[in-house]
């Protein structure tokens, strides 16, 4: 199977490729599958290079969410005295949201800069370009796994045992990744042409941290605003994480969650279609 380039197969199973302006490739998605090894190796490259030539290396993935959590716990829990969900310790409430937020923020910023960072590849070789932004999600995911270990440690410390909802966590991790992929694809494609978007993302990420229910529970939002608040797709993801990790303490607000889900799907659709539409001009513009 893997030896399609082998000499014996020349002439036998060769594909006929037609290159024409505006031609949409029928086998794009199967091509994507054929280039899976490239996906793996690009992801591996990003991960192994990420903390090269830094002193504390991978500890960066630990320190940043941990410090933010401490600050948020102090400000929102102690000073502003916002209520936690049920019996859950405030630090856990914050950290359960820090996890998906950091995952989302990292994935979004990495993927939206990904095409520009790989400009040399785009100008010199062909492959389905979708591989580049999606491969960056892996880096964000690895950072997430590291922070996750801290969460487990915190749970031990607080002697907090999550309920059966914990089993749904992988679904919500995927959701956080998809939530970042949609806008990420869109912005990275725009970034090729208009570098303005390079400045948009740090702003969105900084702004979003306060707009999303990271430092506080979304239960503090007045009931009549909940649905409107859920227009922010990360509200659904974060609520979902809390529901999984804090068990019955954070019941899921279903209409809001479904709305977030719909928004994530819409962004993903827009992102993928825009990306596919502009993909062929990347090499000319980058």
């Amino acid at each position: 199977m893997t030896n399609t380039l082998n000499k014996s197969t020349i002439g036998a199973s060769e594909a006929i490729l037609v290159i024409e302006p505006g031609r949409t490739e029928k086998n794009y998605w199967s091509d994507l599958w054929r280039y899976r090894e490239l996906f793996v190796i690009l992801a591996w490259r990003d991960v192994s290079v990420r903390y090269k030539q830094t002193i504390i290396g991978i500890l960066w993935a630990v320190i940043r969410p941990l410090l933010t959590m401490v600050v948020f716990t102090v400000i929102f829990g102690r000073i502003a005295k916002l209520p936690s969900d049920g019996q859950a310790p405030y630090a856990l409430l914050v950290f359960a949201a820090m996890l998906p937020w950091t995952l989302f923020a990292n994935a979004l910023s990495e993927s939206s800069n990904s095409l520009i960072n790989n400009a040399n590849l785009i100008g010199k070789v062909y492959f389905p370009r979708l591989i580049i932004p999606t491969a960056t999600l892996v880096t964000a995911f690895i950072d997430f796994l590291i922070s996750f270990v801290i969460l487990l440690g915190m749970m031990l410390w607080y002697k907090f045992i999550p309920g059966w909802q914990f089993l749904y966590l992988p679904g919500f991790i995927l959701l956080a990744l998809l939530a970042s992929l949609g806008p990420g694809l869109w912005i990275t494609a725009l970034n090729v042409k208009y570098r303005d978007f390079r400045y948009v993302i740090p702003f969105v990420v900084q702004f979003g941290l306060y707009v999303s229910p990271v430092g506080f529970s979304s239960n503090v939002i007045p009931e009549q605003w909940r649905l409107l608040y859920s227009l922010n797709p990360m509200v659904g993801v974060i609520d979902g994480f809390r529901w999984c990790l804090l068990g019955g303490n954070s019941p899921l607000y279903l209409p809001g969650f479904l709305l977030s889900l719909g928004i994530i799907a819409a962004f993903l659709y827009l992102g993928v279609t825009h990306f596919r539409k502009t993909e062929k001009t990347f090499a000319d513009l980058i």
Partner: protein
Amino acid sequence: MSDTVIKAENLGKRYTIGHQRGRGDQTTFREVLVQNARNLWNKSRDLVAGRPVIVGDTLEEVWALKDVSFEIKRGEAVGIIGRNGAGKSTLLKILSRITEPTEGRVTIRGRVASLLEVGTGFHSELTGRENIYLNGTILGMTRTEIKKKFDEIVAFSEVERYLDTPVKRYSSGMYVRLAFAVAAHLEPEILVVDEVLAVGDAEFQKKCLGKMGDVTQEGRTVLFVSHNMGAVSTLCSSAILLNSGRLTRQGTTQQVIDEYERLEALEVRSEWTAPYNDDAEAEAHLKKIEILDCFDQKRHIFKSSEPIFIKFTIDIDKPNKNLKIGFDLTRNGLILFRSEQTDSLPPGSLIKKGTNILVCRIPPDILREGDYFLRPMVSIHMVHWIQNDIAPAVLFTVRFDASRSSYHMSITESNHPGIIFPQLIWTVELTTS
């Protein structure tokens, strides 16, 4: 079996290039603001309307490739020849699916691997070993393939000892050897290779050529772009000549190289065209120099009794009243004179944004017999050079017009010493009988 593996029909690729209107003629802050606001408005209008947004006020369409059709049979090694900017790289990029053609179509049977540079995707922080996997995968090899050929690749590259050192510690020679070693072990059905042999030392180049020769022996199809005519003729059985984006000749390598050299010899003398990759930041870009006779025809041999016209085509991006364009005229390495447009035109005469054409006339009966070289110069007066190449761009020849003298068939050092031979006017003031 003479089946076609690549068939190109009427391929064309158009690029749209934007030119900025003059910044130099905006003197006040208010004007700059107005201009920026207008640009912003235009851009956002384009964005909303879904039109491509192009930076600049005037647009120019450039056909990098036009009406190119050809067929390539299985197992052929085809050289693609042409000057800089002839469209070779664009053609390769279309064939390797990096960019899309504007018109026409290509049908390709089999898998294409393209090698437009060596070491694509090499990451300086990663070790040699890691980069072999990374680069190999990027070029389209599978992991199992790379594993199988790993030892061969390492042996070919001659960097065994540094395999676990990050490539940023490599010398440039080692880097190129490793990069090429990976590329040389690609085994696609169709291999597209751009000028990659220009790197590396002569010995290694020879090794690479040998390796590529093996590839074609195995019945694979190779498309090869190079400026090295020797490499093209050893590797390729046939060739394609591109000139200004058009296919001007297809045939055996020898025929095509002959044609190319004939064209080059013709053009180097009477015309010079700027290579594509000049400094985009510069105020002005010298595009072309032509040597013309008084009938506006390109020529390179003149009689000493004829005037010679030198035509400069220059694109001005940022008008500047101190822009100077000129040339040194040399013969046998000796500068005869330097001339600049400001010698006879008032300063600031060359400030129109866009394409400007200037003509300098060398009057008749001044130059003596010989080959003259012209070295162009463009500068902002007393500020900086825009263009100051050491190499001459054009060459023309002057032959003595024997009808001008009743005594000499030619002007030589012995009958007329001196670096120029001006035909001065002699009059008879007085004769007594």
